[in-house]
């Protein structure tokens, strides 16, 4: 029996949410930045522990102010993936504030924190920055190279099944 789960990708604009999604669903990547407006939705089936899970992934338009997200986009989400750009500190300086807003509004929805574009930076430097800001990230990934993209979504799916 297949279960379908809604996952929402959140974060500042230009952090690579759409690229992560395309890499995961279509295994493609483009250097060109194309703004997402509103929401772009894709689905992909994954098998976790012999069980089929259909991930319905909502790639929501990026913003630096999470209070501006339309509730209808986040409604019914089983998991949030908070993406930041590891090469731009401005995209994770306010991470704690945005997280607290999510936790307040959606206390039961787990949040996975992903630092994307690690191909552009010195990983140790990013890890040091995150440590200084006490940010517990799930993965450092690269939509460009595919690093940790598959693992990220599979891990999210596995956690969803565990919590189901």
């Amino acid at each position: 029996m297949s279960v379908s789960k809604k996952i929402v990708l959140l974060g500042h604009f230009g952090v690579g949410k759409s690229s992560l999604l395309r890499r995961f669903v279509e295994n493609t990547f483009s250097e060109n930045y194309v703004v997402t407006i509103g929401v772009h939705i894709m689905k992909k089936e994954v098998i976790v522990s012999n069980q089929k899970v259909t991930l319905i992934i909502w790639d929501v338009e990026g913003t630096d102010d999470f209070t501006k997200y339309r509730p209808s986009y986040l409604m019914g989400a089983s998991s949030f993936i908070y993406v930041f750009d590891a090469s731009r500190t401005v995209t994770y300086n306010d991470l704690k504030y945005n997280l607290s807003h999510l936790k307040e509004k959606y206390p039961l929805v787990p949040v996975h924190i992903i630092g994307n574009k690690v191909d552009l930076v010195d990983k140790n430097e990013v890890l040091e920055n995150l440590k200084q800001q006490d940010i517990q990230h799930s993965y450092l990934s690269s939509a460009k190279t595919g690093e940790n993209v598959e693992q990220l979504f599979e891990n999210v799916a596995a956690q969803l099944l565990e919590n189901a």
Partner: protein
Amino acid sequence: MLDTLRESYFKKTTQFIVINREMIVVASDNCLFHMSTGMDITDFHPFFFSLSELFESEEGEAKQKFYCIQFDILGKTYYIDIETHKQNPTELVIVLNNLTDHYKSVHQIKQVRNESIIGFNITQELNKELEVQRGFKNKFLANVSHEIRTPLNSILGFVSVLENTDISKEQLDILSIIKTSSKNLVTILDDLMDISKIEAGKLEIKNRRFNFLEFIETLGKTYKIRAEDKRLELLIEINEKLPRFLVGDHLRINQIVVNLLENAIKYTHQGSISFKVYTNSVNARRIPVTFEVTDTGVGMPKDKLESIFDSFTQLEKKGLFGGSGLGLSIVKQLTHLLDSDLEVNSEEGVGTTFKFTIHMGVSHNQKKEPSKNVVIRHKTKGKGKKPRILLGEDIEVNQMLMMKLFTDHGGYSLDVAKDGERVLKFLDNYHYDLVIMDITMPRMDGLDTTVHIRNHPNKKIAKLPVIALTARSSEEHQQEAKEVGVNAYLTKPIDTDLLFSTVDKYLNRYKRKPKDNEDEEALS
């Protein structure tokens, strides 16, 4: 007519669909997309998965609006606003409103805005990284400068001591070579520090009134001798319109002109050097003053002219623009800081002309001030009590050098303490007239020691003149020293004349029981 138009417009933009709890299409007017009755609507687009839970919700929550949902259908992108109305527990009406044209224009605006913000962020990150790198470089340079200055201090100091001993003419010549080479090394260090300051934006232009004509005449005299040493002729031309007193950064103008004249002498093997200073303006509050140095030296190929201003760049041709490769880079950057531009014209084998024009204020007061009181030499030799000086210095060779200098000079009594803590102990136990102190010392450095001196309960000790004698040459260090109450800041290698004139100046002031504000002025 109106109804027909409305209906046709409505058909193009809106579609009504009815689905049941199993997400099966019960009815659709297919105005936008074809959805056959009986199909699973989630097969049409994954968005519709999210509507299943609306059947589970309460009546009041059944009406929902979803803005700007992107549909990619048959290679075409649509932006749709979607509204849901729960008719009854088993049926949901979905209204699709096609706003693609509207959202496409929004998309364009956001694309431009976001790209510009991201570009700005990236520039900021790069700048931050550059700042960090620059910081490392500047710190490294400051440390290297300090480490080199310390042994240089001993070399130059002991060379001076040796010069005054009974040595042969040949030995004196050798000493002169050691001295010149060491001084060149000091110049390179100063240049490195200046470049680093300019790059860090920390080099400030300080405009002050100064005797411009005297400054040019002195420069001319100095370089006439230097040129004659190489059997070159230095022709000096000073325009008569130039006022005597101008307002400008005397120090930096001097640095530029000295570099240009040094360069000209260095690379001219025969012929002459001309140094012209002129203005085309009279009776103005600010005038343009042009400096021009022309030589009949080796010249430069045209394609290399730009690169000679880069730091550490030397032309390949041996003996052309050798040295540290810093001089012209500094000149270029200093002229830029003075709102000017350095022009260069050169022809290989013929010669080179460097020219720059700076705007300087004309002082209202063109009268020469009466010469200031010359510091009275502290005359204690042979009679009376010698002034007692305490030296705080941890490096043995520097201690030896200072002892030798003070012994040779005579007229003072010098005690040495090897760190700041010992300086304070000596001050508590003996009477001193002045303290000379290294800044970098173990246990307690010179700055902390000065703070302790200034806060000493014994007023006499608290007011003792303190002269810093250090290899740390940056303005920040000088400023730091000034803030803790150091009276004068001398840098290593020691300039013996400056050292003793400063010592005498403060010994005389201290004797007069100075007021507090006098001390502050001393560092300027």
